[in-house]
């Protein structure tokens, strides 16, 4: 379910790194919590992002959530297909629903993120808290 070569944030974003470029999206856990996504707002190419700061928003009918940058960098590419088909985020959150590609400014920031096993443990804890 959670690709082993991705890294994950505590705010439920994922990042897949190839060289200096990172592809970013939100996790399956996040899309499930949001419900049906109706709209997503993404930055323009060239926008600078700071690790832990919001770079966009994702909306369901009744809620808006911010999307936080996992690492610092500059936006190289934006998945404009999501504008017309925001439901992709629900259907394929780890693949077709990638949101932005970043050029990493500080690759060492990746060390602070969770790996797949760590993230799965993290969300298992969250689910236990929620049903308590």
């Amino acid at each position, binding site marked *: 379910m959670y690709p082993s070569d991705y890294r994950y944030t505590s705010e439920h974003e994922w990042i897949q790194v190839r060289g200096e470029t990172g592809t970013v999206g939100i996790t399956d856990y996040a899309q499930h919590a949001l419900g049906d996504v109706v709209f997503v707002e993404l930055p323009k190419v060239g926008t600078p992002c700071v690790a832990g700061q919001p770079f966009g928003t994702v909306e369901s009918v009744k809620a808006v959530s911010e999307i936080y940058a996992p690492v610092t960098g500059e936006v190289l590419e934006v998945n404009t297909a999501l504008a017309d088909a*925001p439901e992709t985020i629900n259907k394929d959150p780890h693949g077709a629903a990638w949101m932005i590609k970043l050029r990493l400014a500080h690759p060492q920031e990746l060390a602070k993120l969770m790996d797949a096993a760590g993230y799965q443990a993290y969300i298992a804890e969250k689910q236990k808290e929620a049903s308590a």
Partner: protein
Amino acid sequence: MTEKIKKAGRHVSQNEGLIFEKSAAGKRGMELPPLDVPAVDARQALGAAHLREAWSGFPEVSEIEVIRHFTRLSTWNYAIDLGMYPLGSCTMKYNPRVNEFVARLEGIATEHPYQPQELSQGCLKILQVLQQCLLEITGMDAITLQPAAGAQGELTGLLLIRAYLESQGNPRKKVLIPDSAHGTNPATATIAGYQVENIRSDARGQMDVERLRSLVNGDVAALMVTNPSTIGVFEQRIAEAAEILHAAGALLYMDGANMNALAGVARPGDFGVDVMHLNLHKTFSTPHGGGGPGAGPVMVKKILEPFLPVPVLVEKADGSLALDTNRAHSIGRVRAFCGNFGVLVRALAYTLAYGPGIRQATEDAVLNANYIRARLTDLYELPYTLPSMHEVVFSDARQKKFGVSTIDIAKRLIDYGFHPYTTAFPLIVPGALMIEPTESESKEECDLFIEAMRAIAEEASSNPELVKTAPHATRVGRLDEVTAARKPILRWKPQASSEAAD
């Protein structure tokens, strides 16, 4: 299941499309008296470039079609005239019909705001008497009737706070808001140019005064509080909170949405509030009309009076009334003209009907809420157990065990002939059921509501699917809000009427 339902109204499905779908060239709904001056060639008078060209789609229908269309539409609505709205903090009380009558009187509805003031003394007197009544009810010193709604009243209140603090040398940076607050509060604070800092409630659902003490400093302009709180409980340490704020040079703002629990019983001005707004469409019976108009007057203590928005009602030396716009320290104008006058007339008519007896309305409101609470606590979880005032907040915790949420229960309540209570608010109660019956409900109506809620609690455990797929007795079922948000269709267009009217 339906045999148990004593009150459900059936929604009759009628063959009714959009008014545009009934339109045909040549039909007229209204005729004008003939022109008694020479006609003017618009092309000559205005120039061809300014003239409207052909326009398609604008309706052309007859008078009877308009009457039938809107009459049919009206039958698809629930309304106070039909039954209870137990909506928390909305105070859906009876809208007295005499209010409608007086607002329409010739000499009241017909007056122009720019008439000479000598020819408007009747209107100004209405404003003056209403002002005096609202000040007496709230225990405050000065008032503006300008704001068009509660949200605008809140903004006006915060702008007054800002102006006052600026005059003291420092407008400050932050406004403290409890996590139980209505969403307009933080939105308003942001628009007024303040940062919002949330303050958590304590384990009893009350504002955490120790936490407040630690947060109040020279950067804090004000605390915005609702009293009774959004869980319907009086903030018992509010006077203490006011002292903490005042000691630091900050102010206490009260959201008056829950005034229906206080009128005639306690006055915000007496427990330390510096500025507050009222919702006339809540406590003062002016009709909601499907979502407005309302009015949100703001009351202040003397220190804030110089900053009130213009115009301000003044009494001149000869005893006549006037609207004064020459106020050096005013925050300015918050809307054109002088307020939602028609709404103000209705509120005054309501106040005159009760006089000092308004206390009895408050007592009945609190009685109804506590009666409902007493008769449902065995079946619904009550997360905060302090005494309720005019509203009670349950949670769906017990029903959640069967997969039934507050929203499902609310939708099933529709099948029993009631409008839902407020769901999922306040945020400090997960799965909230926020119930405010108001004083307008008879014991009979309260009992029917209680029976319905008890029946649904039973259904939640024995037949949860029935509840989760409710409502069943309405003209349309649960509507697809997701598609409506993904691909919004916000108007009718001439050629795309392939959707069938049912």
